């Protein structure tokens, strides 16, 4: 867990005092933070059109979540897709949770399991609860 990293934010989004941001070129702002690994991302350089079928890609720290409230929160990230998982250390899971104290942040990696050619449009939920995560979460 880091505290207030000094980095330039490329795409950011605030939910009830929780800042969700990414410094990755694969992120963009579209009203809120969006990960877009396609040619429509303004950061697209003309090469590297995406991921390929039958591959697993992991992007470390693709998302960063920062608690700007003066109280702790429990953050739960939940994938709505079989092709998308989250990780903060080794193992990736469809859902992860962690406690963020005031002004703490956590970077989260995203794992993609690409299966078939075409466009993958997936969603995930961010749940934020006041107070730390209980062990049962």
């Amino acid at each position, binding site marked *: 867990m880091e505290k207030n990293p000094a980095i330039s934010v490329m795409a950011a989004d605030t*939910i009830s005092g929780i800042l*969700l941001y990414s410094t990755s070129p694969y992120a963009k702002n579209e009203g809120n933070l*969006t990960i877009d*690994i*396609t040619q429509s991302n303004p950061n697209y350089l003309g090469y*590297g059109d995406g*991921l*390929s079928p039958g591959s697993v890609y992991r992007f470390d720290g693709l998302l960063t979540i920062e608690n700007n409230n003066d109280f702790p929160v429990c953050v739960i990230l939940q994938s709505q897709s079989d092709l998308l998982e989250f990780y903060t250390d080794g193992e990736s899971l469809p859902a992860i949770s962690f406690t963020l104290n005031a002004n703490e942040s956590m970077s989260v990696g995203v794992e993609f399991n690409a299966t078939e050619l075409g466009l993958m449009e997936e969603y995930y939920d961010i749940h*934020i609860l006041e107070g730390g995560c209980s062990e049962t979460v």
Partner: protein
Amino acid sequence: MKKLAGLLLLIVGLTLTIGAGANFRYYEAERSITVNITSDDNEFIDLTPLQPYAYLNNGKLTIEISPNNPNYPGYGDGMSVNTIYVFEEMFNVSNELWENENGDFPVCVQISINQGDGIEVFAGNYSNPISGPDTQVQFTVYHDEPVPVGFVFNNTDKEMGTQSVQMSINAEAGACE
């Protein structure tokens, strides 16, 4: 009139209290991730066939030395038993990650094939390889500097017929140590 003003004040007062004191208990939001799934020769860790023995099958790099290969010209049906064939530059590995825009973002690529299948790979050319020939090789790939991968097929004591082998390719951020 006075009464009404009092009431308004009270309402304003109440609103302010709520505004200042309201924390949230629970919040939920949904965000999207969109990814283009493309063929191996257009992806971030890009595998581009160089020889006709290599082609893309549903976007996946396939090396096939048999008449089933779509590039099969009608002759040269395969390799014979007790021969050793070396193919340089079967395919290229290139680094097309967008992180390269802000400076070098090399990846360390590992290719592995099961031992005992009689197949080895090498990076670079055969006479002066960067890595291999071996059943496991590793090499660093920078953007705009694709690395060719060659194959050695050792058919000593092989049976006649078709043999199929899986190759796995793994890339990690950063140059190989």
